[in-house]
């Protein structure tokens, strides 16, 4: 038993290094994809203290809108790429309108309410998006228009370490896009005037109002940004599986990532994502069989919990201020 837990997995790793590399790569890719979802949460949380339950459905909604627009255009005979990019722009527009609506209808009247109330309100948004989305797009799964958006397909197979390791091109693209986005957002928060204002809003709505920060404007910006992140996430996840309402479940995967990295930290999202992604894959691949497999569903949470016991605010989260 002890051998199976403590020795055998490492023996396996040593014996089949190519598989280890492949596992790490898969972990890295899932990590990046988790991080993308987590990023949407972080954006909104950091900028308004709202834990946005609707992020998952926003991913689905944006992806469906994109595909929906694309289908409409290609029905009118536009060529693949043009239609795809026009659809992309229109979808961004839709996300902007959505952000405005949410700000106007939901957030503005709820300014300065406790976090949990805003959290609840995002649940209302989720319900409405589900109802609206299913009404408009129906429940059938749709194909993501990956190649029309010039996303690569196929894989790069590299022979190494006595085996073949294959890197999916779409995964590489996802990793690159995610890194760029995350770096950009991190800079934005730390270095710009708006970024500072965003953090101020998250700290206290009331005080932010009193110094003249326009919550309305800021919320639109942030929710729009989160909408765009959702769109990118939707494209990437959609390219992996189909675009359907089932994708919503994936959003739950972002929660341990988020917590591990710290709810308020953009770099935390990516680090958390990588730790969870890689930890989860290694755990499932090498240790999972001992428990009969399928431990991935809670393993991520267990990792997150362990880290939290050590650092209650996550790895990079803002310190929880306890002062009397």
């Amino acid at each position: 038993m002890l051998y199976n837990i403590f020795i055998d997995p490492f023996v396996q790793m040593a014996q089949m290094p190519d598989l280890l590399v492949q596992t790490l790569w898969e972990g890295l890719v899932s990590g990046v994809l988790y991080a993308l979802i987590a990023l949407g949460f972080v954006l909104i949380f950091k900028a308004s203290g709202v834990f946005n339950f609707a992020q998952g459905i926003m991913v689905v909604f944006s992806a469906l809108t994109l595909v929906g627009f694309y289908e409409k255009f290609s029905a009118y005979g536009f060529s693949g790429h043009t239609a795809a990019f026009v659809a992309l722009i229109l979808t961004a527009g839709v996300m902007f309108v959505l952000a405005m609506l949410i700000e106007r209808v939901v957030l503005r009247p709820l300014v300065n309410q406790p976090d949990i109330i805003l959290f609840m309100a995002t649940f209302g948004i989720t319900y409405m998006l589900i109802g609206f989305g299913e009404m408009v797009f129906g429940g059938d799964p749709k194909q993501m228009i990956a190649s029309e958006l010039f996303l690569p397909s196929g894989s790069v197979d590299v022979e190494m370490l006595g085996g073949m390791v294959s890197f999916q091109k779409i995964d590489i693209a996802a990793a690159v896009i995610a890194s760029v986005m995350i770096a950009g957002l991190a800079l934005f928060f730390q270095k710009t005037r708006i970024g500072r204002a965003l953090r101020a809003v998250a700290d206290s709505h009331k005080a932010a109002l009193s110094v003249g920060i326009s919550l309305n404007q800021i919320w639109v910006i942030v929710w729009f940004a989160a909408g765009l992140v959702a769109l990118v996430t939707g494209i990437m996840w959609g390219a992996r599986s189909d675009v359907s309402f089932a994708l919503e479940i994936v959003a739950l995967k972002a929660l341990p990532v988020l917590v591990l990295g710290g709810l308020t930290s953009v770099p935390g999202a990516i680090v958390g994502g990588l730790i969870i992604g890689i930890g989860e894959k290694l755990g499932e691949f090498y240790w999972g069989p001992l428990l009969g497999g399928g431990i991935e569903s809670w393993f991520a949470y267990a990792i997150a919990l362990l880290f939290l016991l050590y650092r209650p605010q996550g790895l990079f989260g803002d310190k929880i201020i306890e002062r009397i």
Partner: protein
Amino acid sequence: MSEHASKAVEPARPMLTVNNIEVIYDHVILVLKGVSLAVPQGGIVAILGANGAGKTTTLKAISNLLHAERGEVTKGSIEFNGDRVDRLSPNELVRRGCIQVMEGRHCFGHLSIEENLLTGAFTRRDGNRAIRADLEMIYDYFPRLRQRRSSMAGYTSGGEQQMCAIGRAMMSRPKMILLDEPSMGLAPQVVDEIFEIVKDLNSKQGVSFLVAEQNTNMALKYATYGYIMETGRIVMDGDAASLRDNEDVKEFYLGIGGEGRKSFREVKSYKRRKRWLA
């Protein structure tokens, strides 16, 4: 009431006027019952009154922060620089030059002191250099803040946070500052300093002030005009000097009844507060 008397001494056209406003919290709790007041251009006006009189509520009504606490102005109007402002958003009001320092600090705990001060300049469009210069000015006013500039505001002491809140408001280069209990929790030296700063800004930059303050002594020393509130109404007003000489004010707000200042030890019985109205 001395309504007409006050008209006579008004030095300039009012910068801020509050006309007969009524405020209700939570749709059912009536807190202000018809409050009117005016702050002249370049004036320092004090609102005095006991706990719960409605000073804070009045200030929040002016700066439009009531909305965030489920309060609402149901009657009356508020004008700033001649325009009605009671429907504006708080940030628009700040942009027009009226900013509030809230009671009880409200710093951004997770931002450093310096970042806190910089958020004050959010509405400003006059460039980094001017903002930096003002930052230096604030640090000169409050040297303690300079020492703690990179500490997270949440970890600083109560007085440091109070300074930070005041400094932050000053960073917006306002035409008018609504100060809610600025002296609370500050060392006596710093209280003096704050009021000196108020005077300084008032005389050098022409900033007007509306100050809600419990430290009546201080407030009336620096203010040009004062209002006294009781349970949601203005019960007395007049220029600072006349209030200072008023017997009732002396007795209840300055603590110097007929025979001059008493020791706190000698206050014999719990007095029942005299009410002017109601």
